[in-house]
């Protein structure tokens, strides 16, 4: 499991477990559990609480300067986890009916979730420290210089290997950032996958001894590419992130406002029903 995506795996696992439980209830009831039934209601309550935690805790943590609350990266991962599992539980709570305000809340929730996914993608385009503090251009360029120095050191120490894998070290055509910082931010994954695919092909053709020496080189090259992308897209990434915030937050507020109204109505019409 990649450490960088650990929260995704956790969320996936939780959703699988919840799904299995849900299917078990369906089998027992021989019907979809209603939204106001005990199980459905529990799904909705727990899911919404997770969503509230998603909405508030990470934001509060971001605004806290104290390190005793834990690392930002950890809170971000928690935010992502609750942001995936909570909405999934609420989705199951709907009993697959999307009438009225409840349906609108469901749609808003899905939009906010996907928005969040996009926002994370954009967020990771902005280089940050482990504490979530953005890294400035100057720092990035220093890091790039350091990586390139290590690359040179490696090439010098292994001239034959360097010659053998020189092709892998070249830039892919059409993969430069240019003015399309937006494209670079949005397409960096594809770009990276392209590099890695080429590297994989080239590695198959390498001798075993050279392949073993090339592992360190691969790491350095990845680091180099990432830094270069970050440098190239730094401004664009920040702009995109700000834009995303401007959309995501209001939509989120709308979601929760409508959700609270829905909850109030459910309490009025269902929970307190005699």
């Amino acid at each position: 499991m990649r450490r960088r995506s650990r929260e995704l795996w956790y969320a996936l696992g939780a959703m699988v477990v919840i799904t299995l439980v849900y299917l078990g209830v369906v089998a027992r009831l021989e019907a979809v559990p209603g939204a106001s039934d005990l199980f459905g209601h529990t799904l909705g309550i727990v899911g919404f609480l997770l969503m509230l935690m998603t909405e508030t805790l990470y934001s509060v943590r971001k605004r806290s300067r104290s390190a005793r609350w834990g690392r930002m990266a950890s809170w971000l991962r928690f935010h992502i986890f609750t942001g995936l599992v909570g909405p999934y539980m609420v989705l199951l709570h709907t009993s697959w009916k999307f009438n009225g305000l409840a349906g609108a809340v469901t749609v808003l929730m899905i939009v906010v979730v996907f928005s969040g996914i996009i926002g994370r993608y954009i967020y990771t385009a902005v280089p940050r420290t482990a504490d979530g503090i953005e890294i400035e251009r100057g720092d990035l360029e220093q890091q790039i210089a350091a990586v390139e120095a290590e690359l040179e050191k490696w090439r010098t120490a292994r001239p034959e290997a360097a010659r053998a894998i020189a092709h892998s070290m070249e830039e892919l055509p059409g993969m430069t950032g240019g003015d399309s910082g937006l494209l670079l931010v949005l397409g960096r994954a594809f770009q990276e996958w392209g590099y890695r695919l080429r590297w994989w092909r080239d590695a198959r053709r390498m001798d075993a001894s050279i392949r073993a020496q090339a592992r360190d080189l691969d790491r350095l090259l990845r680091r180099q590419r990432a830094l270069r992308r970050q440098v190239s897209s730094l401004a664009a990434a920040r702009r995109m992130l700000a834009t995303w915030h401007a959309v995501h937050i209001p939509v989120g507020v709308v979601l929760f406002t409508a959700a609270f109204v829905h909850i109030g109505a459910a309490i009025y019409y269902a929970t307190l029903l005699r």
Partner: protein
Amino acid sequence: MRKRLGCLSTSGLAAALLTLLVLAGVIGLWGGAPFSPGPLNAQVGQAELGGVRSHDAIGGQCSACHAAPWSGETMSDRCLLCHVDIASQLLDPSSLHGVLMPAGESIECYACHTEHQGPEAPMTVVDPDRFPHEVTGYSLQAHRQTEEGLDFACAGCHGADITRFEPATCGACHRDLDAAYMQGHQETFGMDCLACHDGIDTYGQAFDHNQQEFPLEGQHASLSCAGCHLAARSLADLQAAPRDCYACHAEDDAHDGQLGQDCAGCHTTEDWPQATFDHAQTAFPLTGRHTGVDCRDCHTGAAFQGTPQDCYACHAEDDAHDGQLGQDCAGCHITEDWQQATFDHAQTAFPLTGRHTAVDCRDCHIDRTFQGTPQDCYACHAEDDAHDGQLGQDCAGCHTTQDWQQATFDHAQTAFPLTGQHTSVDCRDCHTDGVFQGTPQDCYACHAEDDAHEGQYGQDCAGCHTTEDWQQATFDHAQTAFPLTGRHAGVDCRDCHTGGVFQGTPQDCYACHAEDDAHEGQYGQDCAGCHTTEDWQQATFDHAQTAFPLTGRHTGVNCRDCHTGGVFQGTSRDCRGCHEDPVFHLGLLGVECDTCHTTDGWTPARYDRPHTFPISHGESGPSPCRTCHPDTLAAYTCYDCHEHNPAEIESEHRKEGISDFEDCVRCHPTGREDEAEGEGGGGDD
């Protein structure tokens, strides 16, 4: 400055406000429709209720059904505001709603009637598993699944209208399962299944009759229901079936009602003919072999009441006594065994004792004659009379029923009582040839051959002999001229009366004791003069009649000590004849010992003759001779009884200048000390 939370940012607050406004507008326009979980039912009803014919027509007026929580009303109250017909049903316990929702119980309408499921969704969704069908009087417990394993649906029995049920519906399914059974069942119990069946198979296959008040036991268990529950068409009919035996078995009553109608008192359901009547409850308990007798053997003609209880009613033909002993057979016979009669003969004038008890009745009561049977012994034992009638016919006078041979004749009642060994003599030893009367009573008649005296003493043996022991004759010799005294009494008669001669036996001692005469006739033949019959050796001779009376110790001397050699006459009377003169005397005192000595003892001797020295010398008076004369009379000494000793005497005399002091008497003739002046050398006193 810290950034505010996104939700509290301007855009966030604006978004929230805008959302609320939009929602408010939507609610204002469409009421509570935005909160509806689904479309309302649009099915049109037959009548207009609450101003509408369908729920959908209510639209967004949620409050028409949903009462505010603080209003105190329930949704059911709102339902009944429109559905007044249902409100009426609730008051009618015979109606569906009246049964489902009895007074006091709160079951909400929405428990069965759902909404918001869509315009065409059913308004009534009843979970068969949860619907309390039993309140209708019929449980679905046995109708969960069909034979094919499918769940029962309401329409399967109720059709389109679940409030209606046709009884024929049951048969339609059950005939498919077992047509033959259903046909017979319905013919027996009718077509109204619900009249008996309640859905939980109370009276179905699981019905256990044994749990009811009338358990089916024995042959009852194999009967069909209709066998007892005649024309039953309902539970009430089934339960009304009679439980008493007579209701079904009146025609089986072989007793014609004589024993009442409680057949179970004797008969069981296992087997009707096998009745178990407790005869012990009657006045005639069955005991012994009566218990194995078939009822009909006694109760002939099926008559049980009034059956005679006396033995003769059944056993008259068994009376071997031909009525002689009456008709109360039980007086002797028992039900265990007729042959084993136990007649108490002790109640008769002839109690059976001894061996009579083991005699068979017929041995005495021949020809079955019991009354008037002779009671005298001779009637049965005449042939056993060994006395040939000599002793009469009262055998019991001697013989007992214990043992005929052991007669116990009291001879004491005769003139010849049996004593001693006569008691153990067999009767026939005396009463020979069976003759008892006139048997001789004198001894000689039997003991003539035992007469060792050959008739010398006559024939009255009893004068000496006793019946205890013939040999031990007890002849009173004192009656003779020679009474037996002392040891004569223990002498055998024959020792004296030799040759069997008793008369004329010599009476003098010498006739028997001549050989015992140690005196060889010196004293004649009258031994009794000295000797006694007590002890021959101890002769008591009166020596005082002789010239030498025995005195003192002579009296204890054995005769032979003096009369040696058996010589008594002429024995010397001189002391020296027996007593030697002791050396002590040295022949100085002559031979007349009695001058000094007596027969009482040699010492102390009494010397009365003149003595040169006073014998009474000394404070103690006369002293024995040996005091001065220790060895012989020829010498004397003064030292034995004087406190001074030879050394001192010598010393004292030598002081006095006396040298010759051996002969004390010479100077002291009388034993006085002062007599010695002028003698033996002199000296002052």
